[in-house]
Each structure stands twice: as structure tokens, then as C-alpha cells.
């Protein structure tokens, strides 16, 4: 709801956001394009060596290098749109590898991306830099020698104020061009990869099955881990407290004969222990499946979480239909864990949770303005959430550069 409304009222701001996003994509694409350039050189050298009759043994290594670069591009493209599955490993023998359709398509993709990706990536860096240069020109043109006072487009040199402002206007125009051009450039940069890198139809299904088998195993693992967690909290918490209650009641009965006052004191302890046990049991029950999730809705449940979070937290939910309970519970716990992390480690003062449905996926995005540096590897609660999400065939992405902001995106197929 939030994003759409903003877009309707200030279309310019939404466009600016899209352009900024495009710069990020183009820059990431520039990275893989440079790698592709390196791999291209390797392939050409290998080809030349083969023509000279000495390079055959280099072929598998070169193809594997191409695969590594192509896999990076697949990961990059999967991040921004439909997921691209990794193909089967490159066959070990040079002959079989060169017959492999996935390898052939990668070899076709390599020069396209190395050249097109590089040029578009450079464009993405140059346009913003030159517009900043030009727009700010009136602020500093007097400070530099006349020969350096050029506009980034090559006019000049400039000697007077009107000229400086003209350059500033040219900078504004560059921004306009960038806003229109960059999103298209990002799409164009992704195009060779989108066309050539997905596995062919013949292998697609087999890979999908392999992936489903893996995620199914992960689902069972996550299920076991969840059972262990419940067993732990029941055993270490509730059961032990009930034993304590029992011991204290036993002690009180023994004390009754000796000294009723002592018995009274022990009984009051026993009652306190019983209350403690009940509170803990309530917590365990909640952690299995929060009742509000089944009785009300996911946005209501998240609003409850936000209210309990010590950091100021806004929920922007745009959901009209419900998803499978297990899917909603997964997203609920992802948000719960993210908010716990934010409260404990981030030092943030604001957090936002965006919840929406994109086609058949339930997506949540949790953003905070804290110090960043969150890590989903290691033993943190986030790694548990990652497993749980992936077990539902979902995606989990954490972006948390040092200095922030931290953005956690979770998306799970609705299963309905």
C-alpha cells in the first residue's frame, strides 16, 4: 500500500528510486562484465593454443572459469527477477563439455556480456558522476584553473557566471536523461543473461526436482530442529518448574507437622513456582503457533509484534487474501526474529516492515536505520530463519553493510 501510494502522488520520486536501483544493478553487472572480459581472454588464449595444437588440456579449466562467471551472473539476475537455476556441472572431458548445450550457450553469452555489460555499466557510473559534476559546477568553477573548468560533456572552458549556470542546466538535463535511460539500460544489460543463461527445457525439470529434493530434506531438518526447540523449552522450562513445585509441596507437607508457619512460607514459594511455570508454558505455546495468527490475520499478528518491539516500528501491509498457515507462520517468525535482532544489536531508532503479495509469493521486507553488519551465517537466530524460509522453497536475502541500513527480504510461495 505504502509504495503504491507514494508512487501515485509523486511519480517523480518513484522514478528517481527506480533510477537509483538501476544504477545498483548496472554497477553489479559491471562487476560480472569485467569478470566475463577476463574469462573471454582466457577462452581466446585457449582457442589460439588449440589451433596451435597445444591447448586441448586447457579447455576444461577455461570452461569451468566461464561457468564460475556465468554462475555469478545467474545469482545477480535471480536477485532482481525470476530465479535462474544453476545447470549441471561442466562435464570433465573437453569433448563432452563442448557438446553440452549449457556450456555452448554460456560461450555465446560471454562476449555479449563482456562488451555490452561493460559499456552499459560504465554508462551507469559516468552519467551520475557527470551530472553531479555539472550541477555543482557554479559552486566551485572559480576555484579551479580556467583550463580545467569544462563541463563534463566537453563544452568550455568557461570564464563567466552565465556559462557556469549553463553547465549547471546541462547537468540537470543529464539527470533527466539518466532517469529515463538507466532503467532501460539495466534491462538491456540483463538481456543476454536472461536469454542465454537459464538451463534448457531438457534439464530444467531435472534440476527443479533435485532442488525440491534438497529443500524437502531441509524442510524435514527444519521440522526436527523446531521439535527439538519445543522439547528443550518444555523440558528445561516448564517440566523443571513443575518438578520444583512438586518438591516444594512435598517439603511443605513435611513441614506442616513441625511448624505450620514454615509450611506456609514453603507453600507460597511453591505457588510462585507454579505461576512461573504457567507463564513459561504460555510462552512455549505461543512460540509453536501464535494464536493471533490463526484467529485474526498476519498483519494483526505483526502489529502485535511491532507494538512489543522496543524500537519504533511501522507495519505497511497490503494483503487481501490469506496464505497457508505454515507460510504465514514462517513469515511471522522471520519478522519476529528480525525485530528481535534489530532491538538487540542494530542500535536502530526506526524499523519498517513491508508486507505484500507478489503474484503467488508472500513477501516481507524489514528495514532498519541501525548500524548494519548483521550476518545470517554463524549461529545467529537469522540462520534458523534462513533454513526455515528455504525449507518452504522461499528466498532469504540480507543486505547489511557496515554503517547500515539493514534490509532483510523474505519471500515464500503461498502454496495456494
Amino acid at each position, binding site marked *: 500500500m505504502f509504495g503504491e501510494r507514494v508512487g501515485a502522488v509523486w511519480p517523480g520520486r518513484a522514478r528517481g528510486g527506480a533510477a537509483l536501483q538501476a544504477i545498483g544493478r548496472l554497477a553489479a553487472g559491471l562487476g560480472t562484465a569485467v569478470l566475463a572480459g577476463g574469462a573471454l581472454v582466457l577462452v581466446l588464449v585457449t582457442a589460439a593454443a588449440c589451433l596451435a595444437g597445444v591447448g586441448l588440456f586447457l579447455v576444461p579449466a577455461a570452461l569451468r572459469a566461464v561457468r564460475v562467471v556465468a554462475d555469478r551472473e545467474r545469482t545477480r539476475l535471480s536477485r532482481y527477477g525470476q530465479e535462474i537455476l544453476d545447470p549441471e556441472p561442466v562435464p570433465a572431458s573437453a569433448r563432452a563439455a563442448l557438446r553440452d548445450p549449457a556450456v555452448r550457450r554460456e560461450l555465446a553469452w560471454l562476449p555479449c556480456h563482456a562488451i555490452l555489460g561493460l559499456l552499459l555499466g560504465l554508462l551507469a557510473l559516468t552519467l551520475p558522476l557527470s551530472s553531479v559534476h555539472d550541477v555543482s559546477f557554479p559552486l566551485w568553477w572559480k576555484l579551479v584553473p580556467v583550463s580545467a573548468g569544462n563541463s563534463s560533456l566537453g563544452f568550455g572552458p568557461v570564464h563567466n557566471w552565465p556559462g557556469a549556470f549553463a553547465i549547471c542546466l546541462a547537468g540537470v538535463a543529464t539527470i533527466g536523461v539518466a532517469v529515463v535511460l538507466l532503467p532501460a539500460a539495466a534491462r538491456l544489460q540483463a538481456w543476454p543473461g536472461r536469454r542465454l543463461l537459464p538451463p534448457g527445457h531438457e534439464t530444467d525439470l531435472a534440476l527443479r526436482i533435485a532442488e525440491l529434493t534438497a529443500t524437502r530434506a531441509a524442510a524435514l531438518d527444519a521440522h526436527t530442529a523446531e521439535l527439538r526447540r519445543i522439547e*528443550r523449552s518444555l*523440558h*528445561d522450562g516448564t*517440566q*523443571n*518448574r513443575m*518438578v*520444583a513445585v*512438586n*518438591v*516444594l*509441596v*512435598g*517439603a511443605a*507437607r*513435611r*513441614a506442616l507437622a*513441625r511448624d505450620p508457619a*514454615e509450611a506456609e512460607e*514453603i507453600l507460597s*514459594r511453591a505457588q510462585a*513456582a507454579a505461576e*512461573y511455570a504457567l507463564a513459561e508454558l504460555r510462552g512455549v505455546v505461543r512460540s509453536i503457533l501464535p494464536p493471533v495468527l490463526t484467529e485474526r490475520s498476519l498483519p494483526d499478528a505483526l502489529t502485535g509484534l511491532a507494538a512489543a518491539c522496543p524500537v519504533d516500528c511501522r507495519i505497511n501491509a497490503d494483503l487481501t487474501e490469506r496464505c497457508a498457515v505454515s507460510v504465514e507462520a514462517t513469515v511471522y517468525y522471520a519478522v519476529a526474529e528480525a525485530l528481535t535482532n534489530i532491538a538487540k544489536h542494530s542500535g536502530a531508532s526506526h524499523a519498517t516492515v513491508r508486507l505484500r503479495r507478489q503474484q503467488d509469493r508472500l513477501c516481507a521486507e524489514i528495514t532498519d536505520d541501525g548500524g548494519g553488519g548483521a550476518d545470517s551465517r554463524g549461529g545467529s537466530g537469522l540462520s534458523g530463519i534462513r533454513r526455515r524460509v528455504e525449507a518452504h522453497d522461499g528466498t532469504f536475502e540480507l543486505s547489511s553493510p557496515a554503517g547500515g541500513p539493514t534490509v532483510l527480504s523474505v519471500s515464500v510461495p503461498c502454496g495456494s
Partner: protein
Amino acid sequence: MRIVIAEDEPLLREGLALLLRAESLDVVATTSNAEDFLEAVDKHDPDVAIVDVRMPPTNTDDGIRAAVEARRRHPALAVLVLSAYVEQAFATDLFAHGGSRLGYLLKERVGRVEEFLDALHRVADGGTAVDPEVVAQLLVRTRPDKRLDRLTARERDVLALMAEGLGNTAISERLVVTEGAVHKHIRSIFAKLDLAPDDRADRRVTAVLHYLNDLSRRGT
């Protein structure tokens, strides 16, 4: 009687200490993990240690391992292990080298204070205490055995109490029969199960437990 307690749950630890002190027993130290427990045993040299099975650092069977280690260092130490649930493997580990001065009870038995104190004293005096639940599990699992079927209902009762570690007097009190009758039952049981008769309670327990354990392993 000087006692060291090892239990990580604070409520239960303090509850146990309170209960024992109210019975004029000397609780010299309470600890919450395996390492501190072994240190306390070395330092205070108690008569009895009461140990929880699941404790830090690993929260698995640290208590059992600590109990076995404490016994290795202090062979005269009596150890009573408390567990939230019955696990055959724990009992097997614990009684691997005989059952003298050893006990293995469910935590909830502590609430029946008299029976708990009885078991505690029995262990401290060189005897054995095995939770009825452990014995019941062994008996259930050994159902297919023909030789156990030869026992009369009363003899099975006596066998179960014997396996818990009770002496002849205690058994006669529980079953409300004379000691002479108990003695007769026991002789009959040993004969039917082809075990060498032994009057010493602790050796008798391990003999019976080993017997049942072997059967359950073969039976299942």
C-alpha cells in the same frame, strides 16, 4: 550426612536444598554445571552427591558423565542421579560397574519426600535405588521371556521392588507380608530365573538389572 547438589534449574536447586536442610541434612554446596560440581566434590568431599542428568555445558548427559567421573575420583562417594525422564542408556552407563552407592530416580519422586529420603539414605548406606519406572520398562520389554512367565504375580512384585534396590525389610513393609515370606519369594525367584542366590541387596539389584537388561536387549 554431607551433600553436594548439582542442578541447573535455580528453583529446583533451591527447593531441593531447602527440603534437605529442613530434614536436618547438611547441604555443603549447590552447583549449576558439571565443572563446578566436580570442583565442589573435590573440595568438600561429601558423603552423597545429588546430580541432574541434563546440565550445562552441553545440556545433554553431562550429569551422568560428571557422576561417573566423580566416582572415579572418589570411589566412596554415593551418587543419586535425578532425571526428567527415564532413559535406559543412562541407567546402563551409570550401573556399568555395579550398583553399590548408586541411585537413579525420576525428578518427580523427590515430591514424595519420605520415599525420596529413604532412597537417599539407602544409597548413602551403600545400597542402590532404581526408579520404579526403569524397572517397569525393563519388565514390560521382557514380556516375551518364558522364564519370567514362570513367576507368580506376588513374585513379580517382589522382583520389581528388589530391582528398585529395596532390602528385605522394606519389601515386606511395602507388600505388608512377613520378612520370612519375602525371603522365601526371593529364593524362589532366583531359582526360577537360574540366578545365583545373593542376600546382599546391592549385588542382588545389579544381578536382577543385568538379567532384565540382557533379556530386553534380546527380546527387542
